[in-house]
Protein backbone atom coordinates (compact mmCIF):
# COMPACT_ATOMS: atom_id res chain seq x y z
CA UNK A 1 0.00 0.00 0.00
CA UNK A 2 1.46 3.31 -1.04
CA UNK A 3 1.96 6.10 1.48
CA UNK A 4 2.16 9.81 0.82
CA UNK A 5 3.01 13.02 2.57
CA UNK A 6 0.90 15.76 1.15
CA UNK A 7 -0.41 19.23 1.73
CA UNK A 8 -4.14 18.62 2.08
CA UNK A 9 -6.97 21.10 2.46
CA UNK A 10 -9.34 21.41 5.37
CA UNK A 11 -12.93 21.18 4.16
CA UNK A 12 -14.70 21.73 7.46
CA UNK A 13 -14.11 21.92 11.16
CA UNK A 14 -16.84 21.11 13.66
CA UNK A 15 -16.83 21.01 17.44
CA UNK A 16 -18.58 17.85 18.65
CA UNK A 17 -18.26 18.30 22.40
CA UNK A 18 -16.34 20.34 24.90
CA UNK A 19 -12.93 19.11 23.75
CA UNK A 20 -13.68 16.96 20.71
CA UNK A 21 -13.45 18.24 17.16
CA UNK A 22 -14.13 16.79 13.75
CA UNK A 23 -12.36 17.75 10.56
CA UNK A 24 -13.04 16.74 6.99
CA UNK A 25 -9.92 16.95 4.86
CA UNK A 26 -9.53 16.88 1.12
CA UNK A 27 -6.54 14.78 0.06
CA UNK A 28 -5.25 14.15 -3.41
CA UNK A 29 -3.91 10.67 -2.78
CA UNK A 30 -4.25 9.48 0.79
CA UNK A 31 -8.00 8.91 0.83
CA UNK A 32 -7.84 6.71 -2.27
CA UNK A 33 -5.54 4.23 -0.56
CA UNK A 34 -7.04 4.29 2.92
CA UNK A 35 -8.95 1.56 4.71
CA UNK A 36 -10.69 1.52 8.08
CA UNK A 37 -8.44 1.16 11.10
CA UNK A 38 -5.56 3.00 9.48
CA UNK A 39 -4.37 6.38 10.63
CA UNK A 40 -2.64 9.50 9.37
CA UNK A 41 0.24 11.50 10.80
CA UNK A 42 -0.64 15.16 11.09
CA UNK A 43 2.06 17.82 11.40
CA UNK A 44 1.70 21.11 13.20
CA UNK A 45 2.71 24.36 11.53
CA UNK A 46 4.90 25.24 14.50
CA UNK A 47 8.58 24.75 13.74
CA UNK A 48 9.15 23.94 17.41
CA UNK A 49 6.95 20.81 17.22
CA UNK A 50 8.49 18.30 14.93
CA UNK A 51 6.75 15.02 15.54
CA UNK A 52 3.62 13.75 13.87
CA UNK A 53 0.32 13.56 15.69
CA UNK A 54 -1.11 10.14 14.74
CA UNK A 55 -4.87 10.35 14.28
CA UNK A 56 -7.17 7.52 13.18
CA UNK A 57 -9.35 7.70 10.15
CA UNK A 58 -12.93 8.13 11.29
CA UNK A 59 -14.41 8.13 7.81
CA UNK A 60 -12.99 7.75 4.32
CA UNK A 61 -14.64 8.95 1.09
CA UNK A 62 -13.28 8.98 -2.45
CA UNK A 63 -10.94 11.94 -1.94
CA UNK A 64 -11.74 12.98 1.59
CA UNK A 65 -10.99 11.75 5.06
CA UNK A 66 -12.57 12.62 8.36
CA UNK A 67 -10.71 12.76 11.63
CA UNK A 68 -12.24 13.20 15.07
CA UNK A 69 -9.84 14.23 17.77
CA UNK A 70 -9.65 15.36 21.36
CA UNK A 71 -7.63 18.41 22.41
CA UNK A 72 -5.03 17.07 24.81
CA UNK A 73 -2.04 19.30 24.09
CA UNK A 74 -0.66 22.06 21.91
CA UNK A 75 -0.77 20.08 18.67
CA UNK A 76 -4.42 19.08 18.80
CA UNK A 77 -5.20 22.57 20.07
CA UNK A 78 -3.61 24.00 16.94
CA UNK A 79 -5.57 21.62 14.72
CA UNK A 80 -8.80 22.83 16.30
CA UNK A 81 -8.11 26.36 15.02
CA UNK A 82 -7.94 25.31 11.38
CA UNK A 83 -10.76 26.44 9.19
CA UNK A 84 -12.14 25.43 5.85
CA UNK A 85 -9.60 26.30 3.17
CA UNK A 86 -6.55 26.05 5.42
CA UNK A 87 -3.78 23.72 4.34
CA UNK A 88 -2.62 20.86 6.52
CA UNK A 89 0.41 18.58 6.23
CA UNK A 90 -0.49 14.92 6.52
CA UNK A 91 1.15 11.60 5.84
CA UNK A 92 -0.71 8.40 5.27
CA UNK A 93 -2.46 6.13 5.11
CA UNK A 94 -0.45 4.41 7.82
CA UNK A 95 -0.73 1.08 9.59
CA UNK A 96 -2.59 -2.09 8.70
CA UNK A 97 -6.29 -1.50 9.37
CA UNK A 98 -8.97 -3.84 10.71
CA UNK A 99 -9.47 -7.25 9.11
CA UNK A 100 -13.05 -7.36 7.80
CA UNK A 101 -14.60 -10.69 8.84
CA UNK A 102 -18.11 -11.87 8.15
CA UNK A 103 -19.06 -12.61 11.75
CA UNK A 104 -21.53 -11.20 14.21
CA UNK A 105 -19.49 -8.38 15.66
CA UNK A 106 -19.06 -6.08 18.61
CA UNK A 107 -17.60 -2.72 17.59
CA UNK A 108 -16.34 -1.27 20.83
CA UNK A 109 -14.98 2.21 21.28
CA UNK A 110 -13.90 3.89 24.48
CA UNK A 111 -13.55 7.68 24.58
CA UNK A 112 -11.38 8.94 21.77
CA UNK A 113 -11.18 5.31 20.60
CA UNK A 114 -14.72 5.68 19.25
CA UNK A 115 -13.93 7.53 15.98
CA UNK A 116 -12.10 4.72 14.12
CA UNK A 117 -15.09 2.44 14.76
CA UNK A 118 -17.25 4.57 12.49
CA UNK A 119 -15.54 3.70 9.23
CA UNK A 120 -15.43 0.09 10.42
CA UNK A 121 -19.17 0.19 10.98
CA UNK A 122 -19.62 1.47 7.47
CA UNK A 123 -17.25 -1.10 5.93
CA UNK A 124 -18.34 -4.25 7.77
CA UNK A 125 -21.16 -5.95 5.95
CA UNK A 126 -22.19 -8.36 8.72
CA UNK A 127 -24.50 -7.98 11.73
CA UNK A 128 -22.96 -5.64 14.29
CA UNK A 129 -23.60 -4.06 17.64
CA UNK A 130 -21.81 -0.88 18.65
CA UNK A 131 -20.84 -0.50 22.29
CA UNK A 132 -19.57 2.97 23.04
CA UNK A 133 -18.03 4.10 26.31
CA UNK A 134 -18.19 7.79 27.18
CA UNK A 135 -17.19 9.86 30.18
CA UNK A 136 -20.53 11.65 30.42
CA UNK A 137 -23.57 12.73 28.45
CA UNK A 138 -21.50 14.31 25.66
CA UNK A 139 -22.18 11.45 23.25
CA UNK A 140 -20.09 12.61 20.30
CA UNK A 141 -20.57 10.59 17.10
CA UNK A 142 -23.24 8.34 18.63
CA UNK A 143 -25.86 9.32 16.08
CA UNK A 144 -23.46 8.69 13.25
CA UNK A 145 -23.34 5.01 14.25
CA UNK A 146 -27.09 4.49 14.39
CA UNK A 147 -27.64 3.75 10.69
CA UNK A 148 -25.28 0.79 10.93
CA UNK A 149 -26.74 -1.22 13.79
CA UNK A 150 -27.81 -1.19 17.39
CA UNK A 151 -25.86 1.27 19.55
CA UNK A 152 -25.32 0.69 23.28
CA UNK A 153 -23.83 3.32 25.53
CA UNK A 154 -21.93 3.17 28.79
CA UNK A 155 -21.03 6.33 30.67
CA UNK A 156 -18.59 6.67 33.52
CA UNK A 157 -20.90 9.02 35.39
CA UNK A 158 -24.02 7.01 34.58
CA UNK A 159 -25.73 9.97 32.94
CA UNK A 160 -26.68 7.95 29.84
CA UNK A 161 -26.99 4.20 29.24
CA UNK A 162 -25.20 1.80 31.52
CA UNK A 163 -23.20 3.32 34.33
CA UNK A 164 -19.71 1.90 34.04
CA UNK A 165 -17.59 0.64 31.19
CA UNK A 166 -18.27 -1.06 27.89
CA UNK A 167 -18.23 -4.54 29.41
CA UNK A 168 -20.85 -3.40 31.90
CA UNK A 169 -22.96 -2.30 28.93
CA UNK A 170 -22.49 -5.67 27.20
CA UNK A 171 -23.60 -7.47 30.37
CA UNK A 172 -26.47 -5.13 31.15
CA UNK A 173 -27.87 -5.55 27.65
CA UNK A 174 -27.12 -9.31 27.47
CA UNK A 175 -25.27 -8.84 24.20
CA UNK A 176 -23.52 -11.60 22.31
CA UNK A 177 -21.22 -11.72 19.32
CA UNK A 178 -18.49 -13.82 17.68
CA UNK A 179 -15.85 -11.20 17.16
CA UNK A 180 -14.70 -8.04 18.89
CA UNK A 181 -13.16 -4.98 17.23
CA UNK A 182 -12.05 -2.41 19.75
CA UNK A 183 -10.19 0.82 20.24
CA UNK A 184 -9.79 2.74 23.48
CA UNK A 185 -7.75 3.09 26.63
CA UNK A 186 -5.40 0.25 27.57
CA UNK A 187 -7.38 -0.90 30.66
CA UNK A 188 -10.46 -1.32 28.44
CA UNK A 189 -8.49 -3.26 25.85
CA UNK A 190 -6.99 -5.44 28.55
CA UNK A 191 -10.42 -6.22 29.92
CA UNK A 192 -11.75 -7.00 26.45
CA UNK A 193 -8.83 -9.30 25.70
CA UNK A 194 -9.70 -11.22 28.86
CA UNK A 195 -13.43 -11.17 28.02
CA UNK A 196 -12.75 -12.49 24.53
CA UNK A 197 -10.59 -15.26 25.88
CA UNK A 198 -13.23 -16.31 28.36
CA UNK A 199 -15.93 -16.24 25.69
CA UNK A 200 -13.66 -17.79 23.04
CA UNK A 201 -14.19 -14.89 20.70
CA UNK A 202 -11.86 -13.47 18.08
CA UNK A 203 -10.70 -10.05 19.19
CA UNK A 204 -8.91 -7.26 17.33
CA UNK A 205 -7.65 -4.22 19.18
CA UNK A 206 -6.07 -0.98 18.04
CA UNK A 207 -3.08 0.23 20.10
CA UNK A 208 -1.34 3.57 20.71
CA UNK A 209 2.24 4.58 21.40
CA UNK A 210 4.37 7.69 20.91
CA UNK A 211 5.62 7.81 17.34
CA UNK A 212 8.41 9.50 15.44
CA UNK A 213 8.54 8.16 11.88
CA UNK A 214 5.09 6.57 11.67
CA UNK A 215 6.28 4.12 9.00
CA UNK A 216 8.28 1.48 10.83
CA UNK A 217 11.80 2.86 10.52
CA UNK A 218 12.66 4.33 13.92
CA UNK A 219 11.43 1.61 16.31
CA UNK A 220 9.88 4.13 18.70
CA UNK A 221 6.40 2.69 18.84
CA UNK A 222 6.80 -0.94 19.77
CA UNK A 223 4.52 -3.13 21.87
CA UNK A 224 5.36 -6.50 23.37
CA UNK A 225 4.25 -9.34 21.15
CA UNK A 226 3.80 -13.03 21.90
CA UNK A 227 5.65 -14.23 18.81
CA UNK A 228 8.95 -12.81 17.67
CA UNK A 229 8.32 -9.89 15.38
CA UNK A 230 9.22 -10.10 11.76
CA UNK A 231 11.43 -6.99 11.84
CA UNK A 232 13.80 -7.43 14.77
CA UNK A 233 12.95 -10.96 15.93
CA UNK A 234 12.69 -9.77 19.55
CA UNK A 235 8.95 -9.79 20.42
CA UNK A 236 8.59 -6.08 19.63
CA UNK A 237 5.93 -5.25 17.10
CA UNK A 238 5.83 -1.79 15.62
CA UNK A 239 2.43 -0.26 16.23
CA UNK A 240 2.77 2.13 13.30
CA UNK A 241 3.63 -0.56 10.77
CA UNK A 242 2.67 -4.02 12.10
CA UNK A 243 -0.38 -2.44 13.80
CA UNK A 244 -2.09 -0.39 15.05
CA UNK A 245 -4.57 -3.29 14.88
CA UNK A 246 -3.47 -6.55 16.46
CA UNK A 247 -5.20 -9.80 17.30
CA UNK A 248 -5.57 -9.48 21.08
CA UNK A 249 -3.74 -12.72 21.82
CA UNK A 250 -0.80 -11.56 19.72
CA UNK A 251 0.21 -8.74 22.09
CA UNK A 252 0.90 -8.22 25.77
CA UNK A 253 -0.91 -5.28 27.35
Amino acid sequence: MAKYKETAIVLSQEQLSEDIFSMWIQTSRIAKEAVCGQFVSIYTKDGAKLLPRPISLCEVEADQIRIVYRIVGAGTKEFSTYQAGDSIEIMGPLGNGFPLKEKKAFLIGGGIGIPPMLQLAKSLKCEKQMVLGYRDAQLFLKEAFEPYGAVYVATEDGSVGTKGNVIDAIMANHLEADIIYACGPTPMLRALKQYAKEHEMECYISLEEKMACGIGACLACVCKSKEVDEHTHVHNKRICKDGPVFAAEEVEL
Partner: protein
Amino acid sequence: MLNTSVNLAGVQLKNPVMTASGTFGSGAEYSEFVDLNQLGAVVTKGVANIPWPGNPTPRIAETTGGMLNAIGLQNPGIDVFVKRDIPFLKQYDTKIIVNVCGKSTEDYLEVVERLADEPVDLLEINISCPNVKEGGIAFGQDPKAVEAITKAVKAKAKQPIIMKLSPNVTDITVMAKAAEAGGADVLSLINTLTGMKIDIQRQCFAIANKTGGLSGPAVKPIALRMVYQVANAVSIPIIGMGGIATAEDAIEFILAGATAVSIGTANFYNPYATIEVVEGIETYMKQHNCEDINQLIGIVK
Protein backbone atom coordinates in the same frame (compact mmCIF):
# COMPACT_ATOMS: atom_id res chain seq x y z
CA MET B 1 28.99 20.47 -15.07
CA LEU B 2 28.40 20.42 -11.32
CA ASN B 3 30.56 18.05 -9.32
CA THR B 4 28.77 17.06 -6.14
CA SER B 5 30.72 13.92 -5.50
CA VAL B 6 32.90 13.60 -2.43
CA ASN B 7 35.41 11.06 -1.26
CA LEU B 8 35.39 9.35 2.12
CA ALA B 9 38.53 7.30 2.63
CA GLY B 10 38.63 6.18 -0.97
CA VAL B 11 34.91 5.61 -1.29
CA GLN B 12 33.43 8.00 -3.83
CA LEU B 13 29.88 9.17 -2.97
CA LYS B 14 27.78 10.67 -5.75
CA ASN B 15 26.85 13.45 -3.37
CA PRO B 16 27.53 14.26 0.27
CA VAL B 17 24.04 13.43 1.53
CA MET B 18 23.56 10.40 3.73
CA THR B 19 21.03 9.19 6.27
CA ALA B 20 21.75 9.29 10.00
CA SER B 21 21.89 5.90 11.65
CA GLY B 22 18.73 4.80 13.41
CA THR B 23 16.44 7.26 11.71
CA PHE B 24 16.12 5.49 8.38
CA GLY B 25 15.99 1.80 9.25
CA SER B 26 17.85 0.02 6.50
CA GLY B 27 16.15 2.17 3.92
CA ALA B 28 13.17 -0.06 3.11
CA GLU B 29 10.51 2.08 4.77
CA TYR B 30 11.72 5.39 3.36
CA SER B 31 12.19 3.92 -0.10
CA GLU B 32 8.45 4.47 -0.48
CA PHE B 33 9.16 8.21 -0.32
CA VAL B 34 12.63 8.73 -1.73
CA ASP B 35 14.63 7.16 -4.52
CA LEU B 36 17.58 5.69 -2.65
CA ASN B 37 19.58 5.82 -5.88
CA GLN B 38 19.81 9.57 -5.41
CA LEU B 39 21.52 9.45 -2.02
CA GLY B 40 25.26 9.56 -1.44
CA ALA B 41 24.94 6.72 1.04
CA VAL B 42 22.47 4.95 3.29
CA VAL B 43 23.67 4.48 6.85
CA THR B 44 21.82 1.68 8.57
CA LYS B 45 20.44 1.45 12.09
CA GLY B 46 23.06 0.16 14.51
CA VAL B 47 23.53 -3.59 14.32
CA ALA B 48 25.01 -5.80 17.04
CA ASN B 49 26.29 -9.36 17.09
CA ILE B 50 22.97 -10.69 18.40
CA PRO B 51 19.41 -9.27 18.40
CA TRP B 52 18.80 -6.55 21.01
CA PRO B 53 15.26 -5.88 22.23
CA GLY B 54 15.94 -2.24 23.14
CA ASN B 55 14.35 -0.21 25.92
CA PRO B 56 10.79 -0.16 27.28
CA THR B 57 8.32 2.40 25.90
CA PRO B 58 7.76 5.34 25.83
CA ARG B 59 10.96 5.55 23.88
CA ILE B 60 10.62 9.05 22.51
CA ALA B 61 9.38 12.48 23.50
CA GLU B 62 9.06 15.73 21.66
CA THR B 63 11.00 18.77 22.86
CA THR B 64 11.19 22.32 21.53
CA GLY B 65 12.73 22.04 18.08
CA GLY B 66 13.92 18.53 18.78
CA MET B 67 13.17 15.15 20.26
CA LEU B 68 14.50 12.73 22.81
CA ASN B 69 14.92 9.07 21.97
CA ALA B 70 15.93 6.08 23.98
CA ILE B 71 15.27 3.29 21.52
CA GLY B 72 18.11 1.40 23.12
CA LEU B 73 19.54 0.05 19.87
CA GLN B 74 16.83 -2.48 19.18
CA ASN B 75 18.22 -4.47 16.27
CA PRO B 76 17.86 -7.92 14.70
CA GLY B 77 21.50 -8.87 15.06
CA ILE B 78 24.06 -9.37 12.33
CA ASP B 79 22.63 -12.65 10.96
CA VAL B 80 19.25 -11.32 9.93
CA PHE B 81 20.86 -8.08 8.89
CA VAL B 82 23.24 -9.74 6.48
CA LYS B 83 20.51 -11.93 5.04
CA ARG B 84 17.83 -9.29 4.67
CA ASP B 85 19.07 -5.72 4.84
CA ILE B 86 22.27 -5.84 2.80
CA PRO B 87 20.63 -7.57 -0.18
CA PHE B 88 17.83 -5.00 -0.02
CA LEU B 89 20.29 -2.11 -0.16
CA LYS B 90 22.41 -3.75 -2.88
CA GLN B 91 19.51 -3.22 -5.28
CA TYR B 92 20.30 0.47 -5.27
CA ASP B 93 23.11 2.52 -6.71
CA THR B 94 24.13 4.07 -3.42
CA LYS B 95 26.90 3.41 -0.94
CA ILE B 96 26.15 1.17 2.03
CA ILE B 97 27.41 2.18 5.44
CA VAL B 98 26.68 -0.18 8.30
CA ASN B 99 26.45 1.31 11.79
CA VAL B 100 27.93 -1.12 14.32
CA CYS B 101 27.09 -1.22 18.01
CA GLY B 102 28.21 -3.37 20.86
CA LYS B 103 28.54 -3.72 24.60
CA SER B 104 32.16 -4.84 24.59
CA THR B 105 35.11 -4.67 22.23
CA GLU B 106 34.46 -8.32 21.33
CA ASP B 107 30.89 -7.50 20.31
CA TYR B 108 32.09 -4.81 17.93
CA LEU B 109 34.78 -7.04 16.49
CA GLU B 110 32.38 -9.90 15.90
CA VAL B 111 30.13 -7.69 13.80
CA VAL B 112 33.05 -6.14 11.96
CA GLU B 113 34.42 -9.55 11.08
CA ARG B 114 31.05 -10.84 9.94
CA LEU B 115 30.85 -7.85 7.58
CA ALA B 116 34.32 -8.33 6.14
CA ASP B 117 33.16 -10.16 3.04
CA GLU B 118 29.86 -8.39 2.64
CA PRO B 119 29.32 -5.76 -0.04
CA VAL B 120 29.47 -2.93 2.44
CA ASP B 121 31.37 0.28 1.66
CA LEU B 122 32.14 1.70 5.06
CA LEU B 123 31.61 0.78 8.70
CA GLU B 124 30.41 3.38 11.17
CA ILE B 125 31.37 2.41 14.71
CA ASN B 126 28.91 3.82 17.23
CA ILE B 127 30.87 4.45 20.40
CA SER B 128 28.49 7.13 21.53
CA CYS B 129 24.99 5.83 22.16
CA PRO B 130 23.83 7.41 25.39
CA ASN B 131 20.80 5.18 25.72
CA VAL B 132 22.28 1.83 26.57
CA LYS B 133 24.42 1.52 29.65
CA GLU B 134 27.00 -0.51 27.83
CA GLY B 135 26.10 0.90 24.43
CA GLY B 136 29.36 2.53 23.65
CA ILE B 137 29.10 5.83 25.48
CA ALA B 138 31.63 4.57 28.00
CA PHE B 139 34.04 4.13 25.11
CA GLY B 140 33.15 7.49 23.61
CA GLN B 141 33.86 9.72 26.60
CA ASP B 142 37.41 8.63 27.35
CA PRO B 143 40.15 9.36 24.81
CA LYS B 144 42.18 6.29 25.77
CA ALA B 145 39.15 4.06 25.25
CA VAL B 146 38.38 5.79 21.95
CA GLU B 147 41.87 5.15 20.69
CA ALA B 148 41.90 1.55 21.88
CA ILE B 149 38.58 0.57 20.35
CA THR B 150 39.47 2.35 17.13
CA LYS B 151 42.74 0.43 16.91
CA ALA B 152 41.04 -2.88 17.65
CA VAL B 153 38.36 -2.33 15.03
CA LYS B 154 40.79 -1.00 12.45
CA ALA B 155 42.92 -4.12 12.84
CA LYS B 156 40.00 -6.38 11.86
CA ALA B 157 38.00 -4.24 9.48
CA LYS B 158 38.18 -4.88 5.76
CA GLN B 159 36.31 -1.66 5.01
CA PRO B 160 37.40 1.84 5.99
CA ILE B 161 36.04 2.78 9.40
CA ILE B 162 34.11 5.81 10.56
CA MET B 163 34.23 6.48 14.30
CA LYS B 164 31.03 8.14 15.53
CA LEU B 165 31.71 10.57 18.33
CA SER B 166 29.65 11.58 21.32
CA PRO B 167 28.95 15.30 21.91
CA ASN B 168 28.61 14.67 25.64
CA VAL B 169 32.23 15.61 26.29
CA THR B 170 34.18 18.62 27.47
CA ASP B 171 36.41 18.79 24.42
CA ILE B 172 35.37 16.96 21.27
CA THR B 173 38.75 17.57 19.63
CA VAL B 174 40.44 15.35 22.20
CA MET B 175 38.16 12.46 21.22
CA ALA B 176 38.60 13.21 17.53
CA LYS B 177 42.37 13.18 17.81
CA ALA B 178 42.25 9.94 19.79
CA ALA B 179 40.19 8.30 17.05
CA GLU B 180 42.54 9.64 14.41
CA ALA B 181 45.51 8.30 16.36
CA GLY B 182 43.79 4.92 16.59
CA GLY B 183 43.56 4.77 12.82
CA ALA B 184 40.06 6.03 12.06
CA ASP B 185 39.56 6.76 8.38
CA VAL B 186 36.61 9.10 8.87
CA LEU B 187 34.82 10.69 11.82
CA SER B 188 31.11 11.25 12.15
CA LEU B 189 29.53 13.63 14.63
CA ILE B 190 27.43 14.28 16.50
CA ASN B 191 25.50 11.51 18.14
CA THR B 192 22.72 12.69 20.48
CA LEU B 193 23.10 14.86 23.60
CA THR B 194 21.78 13.31 26.77
CA GLY B 195 18.55 14.99 27.83
CA MET B 196 15.47 14.54 29.96
CA LYS B 197 11.80 15.44 30.02
CA ILE B 198 9.36 15.17 32.89
CA ASP B 199 5.62 14.72 32.66
CA ILE B 200 4.51 17.16 35.36
CA GLN B 201 0.93 15.92 35.46
CA ARG B 202 1.91 12.33 36.21
CA GLN B 203 5.14 13.39 37.95
CA CYS B 204 7.24 10.86 36.11
CA PHE B 205 9.83 10.74 33.35
CA ALA B 206 8.45 11.19 29.85
CA ILE B 207 10.77 8.43 28.64
CA ALA B 208 10.86 5.03 30.34
CA ASN B 209 14.67 5.07 30.30
CA LYS B 210 14.60 8.40 32.27
CA THR B 211 17.09 10.03 29.91
CA GLY B 212 17.12 10.07 26.13
CA GLY B 213 19.28 11.42 23.37
CA LEU B 214 18.42 14.89 22.08
CA SER B 215 18.44 15.38 18.32
CA GLY B 216 16.88 17.64 15.72
CA PRO B 217 17.25 21.34 14.81
CA ALA B 218 17.54 22.32 18.47
CA VAL B 219 21.04 20.81 18.64
CA LYS B 220 22.30 22.13 15.30
CA PRO B 221 24.37 25.02 16.73
CA ILE B 222 26.22 22.62 19.05
CA ALA B 223 26.80 20.08 16.27
CA LEU B 224 28.05 22.74 13.89
CA ARG B 225 30.46 24.12 16.46
CA MET B 226 31.85 20.63 17.11
CA VAL B 227 32.24 19.85 13.42
CA TYR B 228 34.11 23.13 12.99
CA GLN B 229 36.38 22.39 15.94
CA VAL B 230 37.13 18.86 14.80
CA ALA B 231 37.70 19.91 11.18
CA ASN B 232 40.38 22.23 12.46
CA ALA B 233 41.93 19.58 14.70
CA VAL B 234 42.25 16.48 12.51
CA SER B 235 43.10 15.77 8.91
CA ILE B 236 40.65 12.95 8.16
CA PRO B 237 37.25 13.68 6.60
CA ILE B 238 34.19 14.40 8.71
CA ILE B 239 30.56 13.46 8.31
CA GLY B 240 28.53 16.21 9.96
CA MET B 241 25.12 15.70 11.49
CA GLY B 242 22.85 17.07 14.16
CA GLY B 243 19.69 18.92 13.24
CA ILE B 244 20.20 19.09 9.50
CA ALA B 245 16.81 19.52 7.86
CA THR B 246 17.42 21.65 4.79
CA ALA B 247 20.10 22.27 2.17
CA GLU B 248 20.94 25.50 3.98
CA ASP B 249 21.69 23.54 7.13
CA ALA B 250 23.79 21.04 5.18
CA ILE B 251 25.80 23.83 3.57
CA GLU B 252 26.56 25.33 6.97
CA PHE B 253 28.16 22.02 7.95
CA ILE B 254 30.10 21.77 4.70
CA LEU B 255 31.37 25.34 5.01
CA ALA B 256 32.41 24.50 8.58
CA GLY B 257 34.44 21.54 7.38
CA ALA B 258 32.22 18.49 6.84
CA THR B 259 32.90 16.42 3.74
CA ALA B 260 29.50 14.75 3.96
CA VAL B 261 26.32 15.25 5.97
CA SER B 262 23.69 12.98 7.48
CA ILE B 263 19.99 13.68 7.83
CA GLY B 264 18.36 12.14 10.87
CA THR B 265 15.40 13.50 12.80
CA ALA B 266 14.31 15.59 9.83
CA ASN B 267 13.20 12.41 8.03
CA PHE B 268 10.50 12.01 10.66
CA TYR B 269 8.72 15.22 9.78
CA ASN B 270 9.76 15.40 6.17
CA PRO B 271 10.32 12.01 4.54
CA TYR B 272 11.59 13.82 1.44
CA ALA B 273 14.24 15.72 3.43
CA THR B 274 17.26 13.81 2.07
CA ILE B 275 16.34 14.41 -1.57
CA GLU B 276 15.45 18.03 -0.92
CA VAL B 277 18.90 18.52 0.59
CA VAL B 278 20.55 16.90 -2.46
CA GLU B 279 18.66 19.23 -4.77
CA GLY B 280 19.11 22.31 -2.61
CA ILE B 281 22.88 21.86 -2.50
CA GLU B 282 22.96 21.89 -6.30
CA THR B 283 20.88 25.05 -6.40
CA TYR B 284 23.22 26.73 -3.95
CA MET B 285 26.27 25.70 -5.96
CA LYS B 286 24.75 27.21 -9.10
CA GLN B 287 23.85 30.45 -7.31
CA HIS B 288 27.35 30.75 -5.95
CA ASN B 289 29.08 29.72 -9.18
CA CYS B 290 30.63 26.77 -7.47
CA GLU B 291 31.44 23.91 -9.84
CA ASP B 292 32.90 21.48 -7.34
CA ILE B 293 31.44 20.93 -3.92
CA ASN B 294 34.88 20.12 -2.60
CA GLN B 295 35.69 23.82 -2.98
CA LEU B 296 33.15 24.61 -0.28
CA ILE B 297 34.44 22.27 2.38
CA GLY B 298 35.76 24.12 5.39
CA ILE B 299 36.12 27.53 3.75
CA VAL B 300 34.60 29.46 6.65
CA LYS B 301 37.39 29.89 9.18
